[in-house]
């Protein structure tokens, strides 16, 4: 396991060096060399809250979160990686090898973020890019008690085509190995450690309309189908299932029109707890609306409301994520005081399926270089 981990760290370092070398090739005299990049996203935060907090500390509440993104491009080929590290975290979150046969159509192989999440395909692990400090409950990563497998390992097709005068359509389809449920909860294919090898195929897709082909606004539909084997005997007994067969249907609206920004998402999650031949079906909905307004002097006001229905009645939710937010709101102020540097203050009052909690968070986030 240690050897595997070292291998990936060395590979990441090699990619960063390749990226640096490729950047140097862009200087005068360069012709058809490759290009590359590396960006380090970092954040420091502190949180104060009332009431009990028995669950694991979510990643966003770790005092330090660091995420290294590295990429190297040559011709139609590219390599992209995202390595998340810090206290309590050490994961190769994404490692993808891509082929771009025509501009804006990419075929990726590797571990990627499933395209049926409106939040995670927008911000990935880049804490600095998401205005709020915390992410909506339904968008949480697997190791933060997330309910939907977010990291898949297999093939992903991403394409963006122009439509009419200036608009566009985006299509993403992923067919890949999803997660399994072990003693730690949802566990995707791990690139740094040994895997038990029982992962099953997931299918995910997104289709979106882009009012501006090169803009960041979009409106679309999301679909995911995940078959998640339950390997942990205790969870299998509690869930009364050997397999969690999950369908996710979603719709989202992401409008980025300065100085306003709005992101609204709704998911319907259908869960079949299979213990052949018996099947128990349950479903729940979850959604959120986030509004942001840029002000003068680099300030941005933001607010978000999350809501759900039927989540408390779901055995899958209550066993898997007892901190799942059934409803609640947060608001705050972000100050971008320098290029890629920001301070954020966030107040929240969220009701989970267990309790209601108020919290105050303060965060610095930045991107280097």
């Amino acid at each position, binding site marked *: 396991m240690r050897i595997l981990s070292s291998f990936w760290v060395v590979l990441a370092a090699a990619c960063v060096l390749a990226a640096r070398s490729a950047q140097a090739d862009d200087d*005068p005299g360069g012709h058809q060399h490759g290009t590359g990049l590396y960006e380090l996203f970092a954040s420091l935060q502190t949180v104060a809250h009332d009431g009990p907090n028995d669950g694991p500390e979510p990643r966003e509440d770790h005092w330090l979160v660091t995420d290294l*993104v590295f990429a190297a*491009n040559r011709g139609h080929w590219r390599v992209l990686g995202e390595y998340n590290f810090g206290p309590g975290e050490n994961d190769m979150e994404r490692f993808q090898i891509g082929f771009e046969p025509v501009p804006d159509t990419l075929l990726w192989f590797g571990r990627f973020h499933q395209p049926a999440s409106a939040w995670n395909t927008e*911000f990935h692990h880049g804490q*600095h890019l998401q205005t709020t400090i915390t992410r909506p409950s339904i968008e949480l990563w697997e190791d933060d008690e997330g309910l939907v497998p977010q990291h898949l390992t297999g093939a992903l097709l991403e394409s963006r085509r122009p439509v009419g005068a200036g608009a566009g359509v985006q299509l993403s389809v992923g067919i890949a190995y999803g997660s399994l449920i072990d003693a730690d909860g949802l566990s995707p294919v791990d690139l740094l450690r040994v895997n038990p090898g029982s992962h099953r195929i997931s299918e995910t897709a997104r289709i979106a309309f882009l009012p501006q082909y090169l803009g*960041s606004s979009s409106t679309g539909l999301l679909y995911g189908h995940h078959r998640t084997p339950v390997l942990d005997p205790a969870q299998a007994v509690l869930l009364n299932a050997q397999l969690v067969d999950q369908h996710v249907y979603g719709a989202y609206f992401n409008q980025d029109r*300065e100085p306003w920004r709005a992101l609204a998402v709704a998911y319907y999650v259908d869960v079949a707890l299979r213990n052949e031949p018996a099947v128990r079906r349950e479903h729940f909905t979850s959604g959120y609306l986030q509004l942001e307004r840029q002000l003068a002097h680099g300030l941005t006001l933001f607010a978000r409301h999350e809501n759900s229905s039927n989540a408390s009645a779901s055995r899958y939710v209550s066993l898997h994520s007892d901190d799942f937010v059934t409803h609640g709101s947060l608001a705050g102020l972000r100050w971008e005081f320098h290029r890629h540097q920001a301070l954020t203050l966030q107040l929240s009052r969220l009701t989970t399926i267990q309790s209601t909690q108020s919290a105050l968070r303060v965060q610095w986030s930045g991107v280097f270089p």
Partner: protein
Amino acid sequence: MNWRGPGLALLLLCCSVLSVSARGDRVVLIVNAGGPATALDAIDIKRLFLGIPVERSGITLRSMVNNSDERIKQVFLQYVVSMSETAYQRRLLMLALAQGRSMPPVYSDNAQLLAAVAANSSAVSYAWESAALRNPRVRILRELWHE
């Protein structure tokens, strides 16, 4: 006292100065003189400066951002990418994070930028017309903005 002669001369001088000034106030898209790019529309230009590939004759073009003075920076943001600086930087970061798109190199010195365009056959950038005309290894492709 007869003011007609000096007055006319002054007027002509002002017109001449204004004419030179007006010519200098054009921002133009420039490429390497021997490069493959012959025409780029507004969408292609925006793609380039977002780090999205644009090919001509099998060669992937490379954009270079000119931050040599505040005015040309504002012209670029307003008329080329049509975003605030914050939004542009955020968009570049998002594309880098999502697809590993490379960010265009930024030049804060005009002479270095022109030298880089002159030396790289795939380079695309923008500059004041008066500066671009002084470098024979740089070709003006189109006007981006005029006062």
